[in-house]
């Protein structure tokens, strides 16, 4: 008799329009194991799991739960079969309390809402060994709290099989450790777990077996103990890859952009960036590390002139750019590209063609009342060729391109304009390894051409390899600027949580002050004066 698996997927295929997301995929999950589902971004991991959780319906194929063939038509079906999924983008109602987010999916919840539901949920939370206030509103929760809530929710509904989609992406090193403890405990209690990830070190640490997908196709499943990172990478990417990112040594110039005492508020009016100092030289990449939402977005927007600042100086080549319009800042050669989580929100107009997106920043330079699409088309053609963008034509709406190609279009446009400062946030978000390396190469080429680059990133391993220096933010404050080749992931992790403050590590000057500054004394005096006024209203 063949082994009875907790989950068995056979020949599962799923297409979206002309895109094949999963092709003939087989997957097995043993009872009480942790299975890592490994694959690059865009390899179809989430799609495959969404078919288990009832979000997507497969075009073809069979799913067996505990040996029985089932059809999972809705999340309700999945819940009944004991399958629970913690999605990467949390599925929580922001205005509800923690308890209500759980209560709303309870089977026999009765007609009226009673006050004792808080106590009941609170007890469950304790029983599972977590710590969360049932009355706390989701919108007031930190990311890790939301994730805990999602896990509690899944457990509360009695899931035997738990799927976690990239759970570590939003957590700090220390929080990841805690999460892994939770997962191990759940495994001891007899739960079977699938964890989606593309980080090899995590696979090695937590999983019993690894299943690998590549470009939507199933490659293999191996015991974690019998493999190593290099082998896994080759399966994942399909060939031998050099996992080293280059860090060319370039002669640095005087600071191109200096930020002094910068304070910015976020949309809610809270301080997002708190008296921040740093500078970028030509020919260097300055990384910005920090947990999600600690002011990266606001910083990028302020430099691009999209967000008013509260106080501080932003000196570009000796000129103060505070208060300039986004257009004027563009003309000074400062380029900003920000890849938000939905990857299309800022910098591109998704329904417009590649050509139309190419001319976004210079359309007004054309003479007369008409736009110059001819020039745009040529630029588009050049970017498509040079960066190997896969697209049917220059007139294809950007929305129809795959993630990597979208980002190439965006970066291609930015570089084409010949900037001297590039601010780029999450440029490899959601990209596969090859596309990511293509982007790193582009950035390194720019660095060698003398451009100063501010790189806001997520993956510490990448930042350690690519950046010259790394600035760490925690709740809008700088925790220090460290040399990438002299620091470690652990040190950065401690700084990100605020446990370690290295702002005064070097005695001659505080972090973020350039020795050969372009800021004049007059400007500094003005800054001091203005701050003095603010303190005495």
């Amino acid at each position, binding site marked *: 008799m063949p082994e009875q698996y907790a989950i068995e997927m056979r020949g599962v295929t799923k297409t979206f329009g002309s895109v094949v997301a999963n092709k003939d995929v087989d997957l097995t999950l043993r009872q009480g194991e942790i299975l890592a589902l490994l694959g690059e971004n865009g390899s179809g991991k989430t799609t495959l799991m969404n078919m288990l959780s009832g979000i997507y319906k497969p075009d073809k194929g069979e799913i067996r739960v505990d040996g029985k063939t089932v059809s999972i038509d809705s999340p309700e079906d999945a819940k009944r079969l004991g399958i629970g999924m913690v999605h990467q983008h949390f*599925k929580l109602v922001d205005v509800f309390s923690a308890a209500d987010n759980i209560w709303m999916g309870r089977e026999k919840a009765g007609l*009226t809402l009673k006050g004792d539901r808080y106590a009941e949920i609170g007890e469950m939370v304790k029983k599972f060994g977590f710590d969360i206030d049932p009355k706390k509103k989701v919108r007031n929760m930190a990311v890790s709290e939301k994730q805990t809530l999602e896990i509690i929710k899944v457990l509360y509904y009695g899931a035997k099989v738990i799927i976690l989609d990239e759970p570590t992406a939003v957590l700090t090193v220390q929080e990841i450790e805690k999460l892994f403890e939770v997962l191990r405990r759940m495994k001891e209690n007899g739960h079977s777990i699938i964890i989606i990830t593309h980080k090899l070190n995590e696979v090695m640490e937590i999983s019993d077996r690894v299943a690998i997908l590549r470009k939507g196709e199933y490659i293999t499943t191996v015991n974690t103990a019998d493999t190593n990172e290099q082998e896994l990478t080759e399966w994942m990417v399909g060939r031998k890859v050099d996992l080293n990112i280059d860090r060319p040594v370039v002669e640095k110039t005087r600071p191109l952009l200096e930020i002094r005492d910068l304070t910015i508020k976020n949309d809610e009016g809270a301080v997002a960036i708190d008296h921040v100092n740093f500078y970028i030289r030509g020919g260097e990449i300055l990384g910005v590390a920090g947990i999600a939402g600690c002011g990266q977005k606001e910083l990028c927007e302020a430099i691009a002139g999209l967000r008013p600042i509260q106080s501080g100086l932003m000196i570009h080549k000796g000129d103060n750019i505070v208060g300039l319009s986004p257009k004027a800042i563009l003309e000074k050669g400062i380029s900003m590209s920000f890849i938000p989580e939905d990857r299309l929100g800022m910098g591109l107009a998704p329904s417009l063609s590649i050509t139309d997106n190419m001319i976004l920043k210079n359309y007004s330079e054309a003479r007369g009342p008409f736009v110059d699409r001819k020039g745009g088309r040529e630029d588009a053609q050049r970017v498509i060729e040079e960066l190997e963008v896969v697209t049917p034509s220059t007139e294809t709406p950007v929305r129809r391109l795959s993630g990597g190609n979208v980002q190439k279009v965006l970066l291609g446009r930015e570089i084409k304009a010949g900037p001297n400062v590039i601010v780029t946030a999450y440029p490899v978000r959601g990209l596969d390894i090859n596309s990511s390396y293509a982007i790193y190469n582009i950035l390194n080429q720019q660095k060698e051409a003398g451009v100063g680059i501010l790189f806001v990133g997520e993956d510490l391993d990448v930042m350690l390899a690519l950046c010259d220096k790394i600035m760490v933010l925690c709740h809008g404050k700088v925790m220090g600027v460290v040399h990438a080749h002299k620091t470690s992931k652990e040190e950065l992790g401690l700084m990100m949580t605020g446990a370690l403050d290295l702002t005064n590590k070097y005695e001659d000057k505080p972090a973020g002050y350039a020795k050969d500054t372009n800021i004049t004394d007059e400007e500094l005096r003005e800054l001091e004066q203005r701050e003095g006024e603010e303190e005495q209203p």
Partner: protein
Amino acid sequence: MEMNQLGVVTTFVHNIVVYNIPLLYGTVGEIVVEKSGSLNLGVEGIMAVGAIFGYIIGCYTNSMAVGILTAFLFGALCGLLFAALTVSLQANQNITGLTLTTFGLGVYFFVGNGLKAVAWPAMNDYANIKNGFADLAIPGLSQIPVIGRGLFSHNVMVYLAVAVALAMWWYLNRTTPGLRLRAVGENPGAADSVGINVKRYKYVHTMLGCGIMGIGGYYMALNMSGSFNSTCWINGYGWIAVALVIFANWNPALAILGTFVFGFFNTLRVSGSSLAAAFPGTLGWLAAIPTQVYQALPFVITAVVLVATSVRKREGSGLPASLGLNYFREER
């Protein structure tokens, strides 16, 4: 105050209630629909459809209860149409709602004019309807001077409206299905992921809300004593209801108060001259204001409220986060 003046004030207060009630049905109905995440701009048409069928069938059966049920049923049918198009067929909500208004008014005049050409049922010929719509004093409370007759001596549909509003408030905020409905309107993806049947919730509540609107239409028909002419019975009330939802911050209980403001100005239009006659010294100027100003005032006030609410963005707004957006589970 002389007896005459007292009488005028009493009538005035009474009329405020009379005029705010159809709006209350419309507003509460729209709140229920919007809480499910659908912005339905078809209120005007739905109320008209509910009104015409409710009135005709109510008269033919000589039963107000049948009239109310019919109005509810036809309103709910309009809701079914709206839900089928926007929920199952993913059509744009604004366009579907506007089309529903065109269609509803078309049906209203088509049926009404068609029947009028043959034989129009006059409300006075149907004793049960006429008496059913007569005022019913609440013992005790109605004895209080001015507000007793003003607030506690009304036809049964007035009490029903208040009961429906309070019931809907309770349903939305104090019951599990209400909690689930709010989840659907806030974040259908989250609701779906915990096994709430999003489609069913949207269908059921769109139909329930539209049915309530239909009753509001029926009320207007009876309030006009069923006289059918070229001006629609609803006459823009549906649109005010859409705006009142914002005014009431998506809270059915607050809608009771909100509709009073609008009833007030409508009453000024009707009884302004009698107020002016009763208080020539202080309120004499009321008579000089053209009726169209009173007619326009509810819209002016709604406009002002709209601007005011957008200027100071409230914490704890009842606006459902996914209002106006269709939900497609397999969205990527």
